[in-house]
C-alpha cells in the first residue's frame, strides 16, 4: 500500500482554542478510513484543513508526496480531494442534473463528456430518475445522496464524507454502505461517522480523535480492543447504540 495523505503536527487555533492540536495522520491509498470521536473533538475542523476550507495555523499536509498546506481549496479539489458537507450544501434552486453537472465539469476532465459523467454519477447513487427535479424539492435522504453524487462526479482520488448517514433511514444506510464500497474500488474514502455499525462494517482503518488530538489509530479490531479508546469514547457510544 502507498501513502496517499499525511499530516505533520497539524494545528488549528480559533482564538485561544486549539481545535486541532498537533495531529500526525496517515492515510493509505485505497482504504476506507473512518474518523470517530465525541462531539467537539475537532473531526470536522481536521478534515476542513485537509480539503482547504480552513487554513492551518501550524504544521503541514502532504498529498501524494507533495505539500499542499498552502494550496487553496479549489486547487486541492482539482488535485483529487473531494469533500462533501456535513450540512447538506447543494444548489437547491437548480435541477439535480445541474448539480451533478457542475461537479462533473471541473477543469481537469475533458469538457465534452461532463454531462455524461454527471449522468453516470446520478445513476451510481440511484438519482437518475430525479435528474430534472429541483434539488431543493428532494427528500432529505435524497439530498444527502445527491451531495455524495457530486463528490463522485468529481472523480476524486480521496473522497471526504462528513457524517454522510446522518438523518438517513436504516434502509438508506444499508444502500449507502453498498455505494461506499463500490466507490472504494477507485477511490480512497475518509469518513467522519457517528454510527458505529456503519464504521465497523465499512472501515478498514479507524482513527479516534479527542480534544483536538489523535487518540488512536488502527483496524476496527484493534480499536475495539484499545482500552484507552474504550474508556474515553467507545463505551459510551456502544451504550447509546444499545439503548
Amino acid at each position, binding site marked *: 500500500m502507498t501513502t496517499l495523505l499525511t499530516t505533520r503536527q497539524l494545528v488549528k487555533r480559533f482564538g485561544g482554542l486549539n481545535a486541532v492540536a498537533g495531529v500526525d495522520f496517515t492515510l493509505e491509498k485505497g482504504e476506507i478510513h473512518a474518523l470517530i470521536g465525541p462531539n467537539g473533538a475537532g473531526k470536522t475542523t481536521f478534515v476542513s484543513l485537509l480539503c482547504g476550507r480552513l487554513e492551518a495555523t501550524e504544521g503541514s499536509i502532504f498529498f501524494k508526496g507533495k505539500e499542499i498546506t498552502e494550496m*487553496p481549496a*479549489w486547487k486541492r479539489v482539482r488535485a483529487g480531494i473531494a469533500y462533501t458537507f456535513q450540512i447538506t450544501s447543494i*444548489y437547491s434552486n*437548480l435541477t439535480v442534473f445541474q448539480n451533478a453537472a457542475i461537479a462533473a465539469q*471541473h477543469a481537469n476532465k475533458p469538457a465534452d463528456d461532463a454531462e455524461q459523467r454527471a449522468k453516470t454519477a446520478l445513476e451510481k447513487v440511484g438519482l437518475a430518475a430525479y435528474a430534472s427535479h429541483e434539488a431543493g424539492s428532494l427528500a432529505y435522504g435524497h439530498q444527502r445522496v445527491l451531495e455524495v453524487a457530486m463528490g463522485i462526479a468529481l472523480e476524486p482520488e480521496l473522497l471526504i464524507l462528513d457524517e454522510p448517514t446522518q438523518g438517513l433511514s436504516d434502509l438508506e444506510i444499508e444502500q449507502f454502505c453498498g455505494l461506499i464500497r463500490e466507490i472504494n474500488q477507485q477511490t480512497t474514502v475518509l469518513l467522519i461517522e457517528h454510527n458505529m455499525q456503519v464504521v465497523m462494517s465499512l472501515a478498514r482503518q479507524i482513527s479516534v480523535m479527542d480534544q483536538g488530538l489523535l487518540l488512536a489509530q488502527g483496524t476496527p479490531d484493534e480499536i475495539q480492543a484499545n482500552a484507552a479508546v474504550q474508556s474515553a469514547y467507545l463505551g459510551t457510544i456502544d451504550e447509546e447504540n444499545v439503548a
Partner: protein
Amino acid sequence: MDSKNSQILSLGIHAAVVISFYALQYVLPEYHLLALTRIMLLAIFALGFNLLFGYTGLLSLGHAMFFAAGMYGAGLTVYHFGWSVPGAFLFGVVCGAILGFVIGMIALRTTGVAFMIVTLMFAKVSYLVIVYFTTYTRGDEGLVMPAEFRGFELLGMSISLTDSVTRYNLALLLLTLTMLIVFLLVRGRFGRALVAIRENESRTRMLGYNTFAIKLKVLTASAALSAMAGSAYALMFAYIGSSFATIQYSIDPLLYTLLGGAGTVLGPVFGTFSMFYLIDIASEYTSAYLLVTGIVLVLLILYFPKGVFGAIRQKYCRWLP
C-alpha cells in the same frame, strides 16, 4: 422539450427580437429612432450589468464607473488626440475592461452588501476624478466631440455618425453582438459555473472552481460591455459629461435588469425599453419624473423580484437563457 430543440427555439426568439429592431427603423419617426438608438446602447449597458448581477449574483452599485470609463476613454482620445472613431471605440472598451479588472481585484474580496457599498464608493471616486481633473474633462460641463471626428472609414465604407439611421444600425449591430456574447457565455460550461457561484459560492469552491478568478473574469467582461455602451454613446451622441458617472447611471441598469428579469438575456433589453419610455412619458407630466424610478424599484422588489422574463421563464419555459 429536449435541449436541442429548445436551443433552436431560444435562438429563434432572440433573432426575432433583433430582426424586429431592424425592421422598426423603416417605420419609426425620427424622434423614436433616436430614442431607440439610445435604448439599444443602454440595453448593452444593462446586459453587461446583468452578466454580473443576474448570472453571477454580484450586485454592483457602481456600474456607472465602467460606462464612464468607456465614455471618457473614447471621448478624451478623440477630443485631445484626434483619434479616429474605431480606435477610440476600442480604447474605451479596453479602459473599461482594465478598470473592471482592477476594481475586481479589490472589491471581489467582499460579497453581498459590502460588495454593493464598495462598488458604490469606487463609482463615487470615479465621478470625483472626472470633476477634479476638469482641465482635461471639463467636469460637469463636459466635452463635445468635434464634428470632423464624427466620420470614419471602415473596410472601404465611409460612415458618418451624424446620420441617425447609420447610428441606429450601428447600435443594433453592437446590441446583437452583445446579446450573442452573453448568450454564448451563459449557455455553456462557463455559464453553469456562474450560476453555481450565484447559488452557492462556497460549495462551488469545494467543487474545484477558482471562484475568485471566475468572478474576476465576469466582472471584467461585464465592465467591458458596460464600457462598450459608454464608448459607443460618447461617439454616437458626441457628448461626454460627468452626469453619466453619477449614481443615477449605476441605478439605471439595476432598474432595467430587475424590471426585465435578472439572469435572462432578453430581460435587460425589455427592461431598458420599457423604463426608457416610461420615464419619457412621465417627464411630459412632471419634472419629478424620477419618482417613477423610485416607485417602480419598490414595487419590483416587493412584488415582482424575478422581473418579466424571469417570471415567464419560471412559469412557461425554463430553457430561456
